[in-house]
């Protein structure tokens, strides 16, 4: 990230924080300041895909919360991340219904398909406990879009299609 972008990033993060601080009363106490921490972190996570050290420090200064508490919260919750993820996030649902319908096998197939493709760095493979589309198990979530009734062939086609689209869009 060049300096310009970084400065813009800081501005945006600080705008998110200010937005939430404005909802608090003036001279809000420690407990009240703490109650807006998780919504702020979620907004930053949604916008940037991760929470950078700079963002965490900024929150610490603005909300006057210990940095250790902020890191404690980030590391506790699964959807908050400290590292940037790749272009395509593929979440394999590991809920009960998906497990019974063979999602562990598909996870291996997906890993192989990604490993053997031309550009493995494009993909991040994650697992999620349950997305609640159990009737269509096994389920994948690709960048927020849900794919139901996955099979070995569908997994391989999915990787091919994502790669094709990526190359087309540059």
């Amino acid at each position, binding site marked *: 990230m060049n300096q310009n972008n970084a400065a813009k990033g800081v501005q945006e993060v600080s705008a998110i924080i200010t937005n939430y601080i404005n909802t608090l009363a003036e001279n809000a106490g420690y407990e009240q300041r703490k109650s807006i921490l998780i919504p702020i972190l979620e907004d930053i996570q949604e916008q940037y895909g991760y929470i950078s050290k700079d963002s965490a420090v900024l929150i610490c200064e603005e909300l006057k919360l210990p940095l250790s508490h902020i890191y404690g*919260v980030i590391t506790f*919750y699964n959807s908050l991340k400290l590292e940037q993820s790749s272009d395509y996030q593929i979440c394999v649902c590991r809920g*009960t219904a998906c497990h*019974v*319908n063979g999602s562990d096998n598909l996870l291996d197939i997906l890993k192989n398909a990604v490993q053997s493709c031309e550009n493995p760095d494009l993909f991040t493979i994650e697992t*999620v*406990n349950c*997305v*609640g589309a159990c009737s269509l198990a096994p389920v994948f979530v690709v960048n927020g879009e849900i794919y139901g009734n996955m099979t070995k062939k569908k997994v391989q086609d999915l990787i091919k299609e994502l790669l094709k689209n990526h190359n087309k869009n540059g």
Partner: protein
Amino acid sequence: MVNTIKIGMATCGLAAGAQKTYDKLVQLITNKNLDYEVKKVGCIGMCYNEPLIEFIIDNKSYTYKNITQDKVELLINNILNKKYKNNMLEYTENVKISGVPEKSNHAFFRDQVKIITDNCGIIEPLSLEEYKQRNGFSGLKKAFNLKPEEIISIIEKSKLRGRGGAGFPTAMKWKFIASKQGEKFLVCNFDEGDPGAFMNRSLVEGDPYKLIEGMVIAAYTIKASKGFIYVRAEYPLALKTLRKALDICRENNYLGSNILGTGFNFNIEIKLGAGAYVCGEETALIESIQGNRGNPRAKPPFPSDKGLWNKPTNINNVGTFAHVTKILQDGVDEYIKYGTEKSKGTKVISLTGKVKRTGMIEVPLGIKLRKIVFDIGGGTTKKFKAVQIGGPSGGCLPESELDLGLDYDTIIEKGAIMGSGGIVVMDTDTDMVSVAKFFVNFSTEESCGKCTPCREGTKVMLYYLTKILNKDATLAEYKELKKLCPVIKDTALCGLGQASPNPVLSTIKYFEKEYLTKLKDVKRLTQYTINDKCIRCGICKIDCPVNAITGKKGEKHFIDQHKCTHCGLCYSKCKFKAIDKKKLL
């Protein structure tokens, strides 16, 4: 009269491609300039048939299943040519479109009683008009004409029990908190974390006002001024729907100050979870709303004494609030027609796994499990093996327990729990040890780490289960696992930790054979003893490689079970059938 097309666009529909179907449908209707109103509705429950399209033509309903994008044009052409008469099958050379029989004729619906899901898949989720047409907010208006104590006694008469899993009587919970003075909070637990459970998501996506109405009734009863809905992070569509529904309620004075001119003030704020299963536990949920790590704490004090910011707080599940709404709308006498003596009303269940018809169903409590699996679910393709009820805190029940009536108390007796109401069906392809390992692995990952029995105990359970699955464990280790489970159950801090051994315990109870046959020293489970046919020849004693057989000449010989390696040599050498082989399995 305008004809209507309804298309199910809940998460399950979208996963099956309903968005593309919808786009195509709208495009066709615009291009052909047809007089149809297209409505996006929630989930009617038949998830296995998604994407579902319902045509309402001259007040008659025709439903078609699995309408993917490519089938839309053909379907519309059929409809235009009025080929929809018998509502069943329409064929062309390449594409087959199948209809769904009418609800009253369909095995999937026959045994269901739709009380709280009566609007799901029927109305447009965010249309206040349609909700009101179907009795919406009439429960709230009734409640405002009653005193809080009167509402509590109605709920008491309905015997409503918390639909979150534990089945605690709702009226009792409300009584505790209604007697408290000062500022109070109301929280809706929509952190539906159990893998295999999605009924709350379907309900909120399909009929969000029902939840809001129930919450306002509850707030009025216990005199709470502020409410929170704790929404699971993995449910983006439900979150979006709920946010809009809350806005609409505020605009129409169902929320805010001086609600419907009664002078009662109440508002609801959404709190988004961040992907931690333990936050479904009420004290952890409170910590999370307050901006902390979601660690549970010991009870008492219960949240009704010290909850959010140490103020009295009442926490109920989404389903519970929806039931409250319906009890007030339809009257308590109508409600208690369904269910058993101790568990009244209905329960929404997500039926998944290896059954033919998966989806969201609503059944009266006390219904037989066999009915759910084989009548509503249509049975399994391969031979049925077990149902898993209650997620990671629940257990597996075998075929012999299928005639059990589904209610809170019976299920607990049998080693499972009602939980949030997810039923996962398993057939002979499923290995029960692997199922137990799956749940323990889940609990290990989701353990918050605060108390030792759960943090370390789940790890040790996982270690043994992995060893057993790899056929690398000994009988002694298996016994160790069996000993560990009740210890965790007795000593863990919160409900989730205490329930984490349930999947292991219940699979051991009903499927112990699957564990034993995987043990490394499975031979040990064969016991050799010498019977009275022994003629004292001493052949076995000479052949035994470990000198486990003793006996003087002229005496009956004896096998020392501690030394015996179960090799079976004596058994094969004895010519007089004097050695008994007994399988302990």
